[in-house]
C-alpha cells in the first residue's frame, strides 16, 4: 500500500471556490441531519419525537449559556486533535492514530499533574508540554516506520491505537499511578495547580468551559501560520502533493514525513493533556472517548484547513452536546449522532454527489 494514497484532491481549500467552501459543507450538514431524522422515523419513532429531537439538538448545543459551554468544552479537544490530523493530510499522511496519541499524551500529562508540585502557571505549562511531547513521540513511531520501512501509516496508527488502550489499562494499575485504595484502572487526581481554570466561574462554577479552548484558538492561528507561511509548512505541502517534485526540489522527504507525523501527534497529545487538565482531572480507562476518531471527521469537514477545523470542531462539539440533550428529552440514542457525523464526512468528501443532489445551488457543470 506504499506510494498509494493521494489525499490531496479531497481538499486544497486555498483554491476551492466559494461554493465549495460554504455551500457544500452547509448542504452536507443539513442533508446528514435530515437523513438522520428520517432514520429515526424509519425505526417507528413518531414525528413528534423526531421534532423534539431536532429541537433538542439545537437547544442542547446553542440554546443556553450552559449549552454553549458544553459545546465549546466538547469542541476543545476535537480542535486540537483535528489540527494535528490536518497537518498530516497536508503532508499526505493519514493519521488515524490520534486516539492513541491522545491516550499517551493524556497519561503522561496526568502523571505530571499529580506527581510534581509547582506553582500554577509553571505546573500547567509543564503538564501540557509533556503531554504534547509524548503524543508527538508516539506518533513519531508511525512516522519513522512510514519514512524508513514504508509501513503504511494507516495500519500502524490503527495498531498503535489498540496498543495504547492496553498500555493505559496497564499503567493505570501501577501503584505509583493508581488512585490510593482502588484496584480498578483509575489514576490519582491532578493537583489544583494542574487544572486549566474554568472560564465562566463568575456566571456559574458548574460551566465546564476552560482555558483550553483559548489555547485551541491560539493553536489554530499557529498551525495556519505554519502550514501556509513557513518553510517547513511549505515542505509539508510539497511532500504531500507531489513527492517526486519535493525530492527534486531538495526536500528531505523522510525527515519531513517524520516531522509532520510528530507534529500531528503533538497536537493530539495536547488534546489529551487539555482534556485531563481542563475536564477530567484524572485518567480512567477509555478517557480518550473516541475524540481521536471524531477528530478525523472534523479535519475532513474543515478540509484540512485550520480555520475550517475551528468551525467544524465547534459543529461537532455542538453535535455531542446537542446529542446528549436529544437523548434526555427525546430518548433518542447518541448513536444517531455518529451516523450523522459519518454522513457529513461522506457528503463533504464527495462534492460531486452533493452537487448532483442540489444542482440548482451550483452553476450547471
Amino acid at each position: 500500500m506504499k506510494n498509494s494514497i493521494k489525499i490531496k484532491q479531497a481538499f486544497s481549500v486555498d483554491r476551492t471556490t466559494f461554493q465549495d467552501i460554504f455551500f457544500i459543507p452547509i448542504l452536507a450538514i443539513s442533508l446528514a441531519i435530515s437523513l438522520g431524522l428520517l432514520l429515526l422515523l424509519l425505526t417507528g419513532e413518531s414525528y413528534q419525537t423526531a421534532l423534539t429531537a431536532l429541537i433538542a439538538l439545537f437547544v442542547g448545543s446553542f440554546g443556553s449559556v450552559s449549552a454553549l459551554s458544553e459545546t465549546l468544552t466538547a469542541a476543545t479537544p476535537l480542535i486540537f486533535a483535528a489540527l494535528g490530523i490536518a497537518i498530516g493530510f497536508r503532508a499526505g499522511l493519514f493519521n488515524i492514530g490520534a486516539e492513541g496519541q491522545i491516550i499517551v499524551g493524556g497519561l503522561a500529562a496526568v502523571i505530571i499533574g499529580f506527581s510534581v508540585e509547582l506553582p500554577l502557571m509553571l505546573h500547567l505549562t509543564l503538564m501540557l508540554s509533556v503531554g504534547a511531547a509524548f503524543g508527538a513521540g508516539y506518533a513519531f513511531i508511525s512516522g519513522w516506520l512510514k519514512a524508513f520501512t514504508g509501513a503504511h501509516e494507516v495500519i500502524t496508527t490503527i495498531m498503535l491505537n489498540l496498543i495504547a488502550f492496553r498500555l493505559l489499562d496497564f499503567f493505570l494499575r501501577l501503584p505509583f499511578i493508581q488512585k490510593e485504595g482502588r484496584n480498578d484502572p483509575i489514576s490519582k487526581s491532578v493537583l489544583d495547580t494542574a487544572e486549566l481554570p474554568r472560564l465562566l466561574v463568575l456566571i456559574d462554577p458548574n460551566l465546564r468551559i476552560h482555558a483550553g479552548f483559548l489555547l485551541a484558538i491560539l493553536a489554530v492561528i499557529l498551525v495556519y501560520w505554519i502550514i501556509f507561511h513557513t518553510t517547513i509548512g511549505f515542505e509539508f505541502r510539497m511532500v504531500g502533493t507531489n513527492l517526486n517534485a519535493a525530492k527534486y526540489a531538495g526536500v528531505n522527504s523522510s525527515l519531513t514525513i517524520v516531522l509532520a507525523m510528530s507534529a500531528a501527534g503533538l497536537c493530539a497529545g495536547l488534546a489529551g493533556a487539555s482534556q485531563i487538565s481542563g475536564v477530567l482531572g484524572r485518567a480512567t480507562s477509555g478517557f480518550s472517548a473516541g475524540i481521536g476518531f471524531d477528530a478525523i471527521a472534523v479535519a475532513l469537514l474543515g478540509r484540512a484547513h485550520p480555520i475550517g477545523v475551528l468551525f467544524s470542531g465547534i459543529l461537532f462539539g455542538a453535535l455531542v452536546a446537542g446529542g446528549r440533550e436529544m437523548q434526555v428529552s427525546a430518548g433518542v440514542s447518541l448513536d444517531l449522532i455518529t451516523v450523522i457525523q459519518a454522513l457529513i464526512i461522506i457528503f463533504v468528501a464527495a462534492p460531486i454527489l452533493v452537487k448532483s443532489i442540489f444542482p440548482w445551488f451550483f452553476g450547471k457543470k
Partner: protein
Amino acid sequence: QVTDLGGVDDKSFNETAWKGVQDAVAKHGIDSKILESKDGTDYEPHLNSMVGAGCDIIVAVGFLMGEATQKAAEANPDSMFTIIDFAYNPTIPNVLGQVFATDQAAFLAGYVSAGVSKTGIVGTFGGINIPPVTGFMDGFAWGVSHYNKVKGKNVQVLGWDPAAKEGLFTNNFDSLDDGRAFAQNLYDEGADIVMPVAGPVGLGSASLADELGSDKLKIIGVDGDWTVTDPARKGVYLTSVMKNMDATTLSVIEMAKSGNFSGGLTVGTLENGGVGIAPYHELSSSVSSDLASEVEALRKGIISGSIKMN
C-alpha cells in the same frame, strides 16, 4: 438513571437496575429518564444533564461512576443520588450507596459447582479487575475451597486466584465472542462449569455451553437470574449469583418519594435478600438433594456468621 458501559440490555447489571426503576414507574406512576454511557467521560455531563432535566432522584449504576457522582452530588446538594456498587466514606448526605456482599452468594455458587463438577475443575473469568467483579470471583473460589475442605476433595478453580488477585479477564464488557472463546479455553483445560463475571460477555459463554450441551459445560449467571432473563438458553444455567439491585433500587426510590431518603450506605446481603442464588431450574436434577440441603445449611451458616468464608 445513568447506565454504565455495556448498555441497558446487558441482561445483567444495568438491566436489573433499570428494572427497579421501571417497577417504581409502574407502581407509582412517576416518570423516568435514561442516559446510556458510552465511555468514562460521559458520566459527569450525563449526571449534570439529569440534574438539569430536573430529576428528583438519580440512579447511578456502577462502581466506575463513583467519582463523577460524588462531584455531581456535591455540586447539587439539594438533589438526591443513589449509586450502585459504591460506598463513600465519609458518606455524602445526599448520596445513598448500594453495595452488595456478592461474595456471600458466589460462595454458595462455588460450593454447588464444586459438588456438581464431574471433571473436578471449574472456571471463572471477569470483565475487568475491579472489586464488584472480583467480589464474585473471590466468593466463588472460596466456596470451592470450602467444599474441598469439608469433603477432602481437590476441585480446582481456573481463572482466578483470590490470594494473588490475578486471573482471566476479557478487558471489556461487550465482546461476546471473547466470552465464547474464554469459555472454550477454560473448557479445553477441563472445566465443566464456568462463571463469567462480565455482563453480556457471559452470554457468549452460554452459547458455547448451549452448543456443547449442559452435560459438557454449565454456566453460572451473575447479577440477575439468567434462566429468566435469557430463556433461549435456559438449559445451560446451573444457577445464578443474584444481586437484587431492582429490589433495592425500588425501595430507595420509594424512600425518596415518601421523603425519608437519607444518604449513607445500604449493604445487600444473604440476610436481607439483597443477594442470593437463583433456583437450579432446568438443571436441578444434576444437583443431588443432599448437596442442595448442604448449600441451604451454608446459607444459614453465613447469615449467622458461624461459617467464615475464607
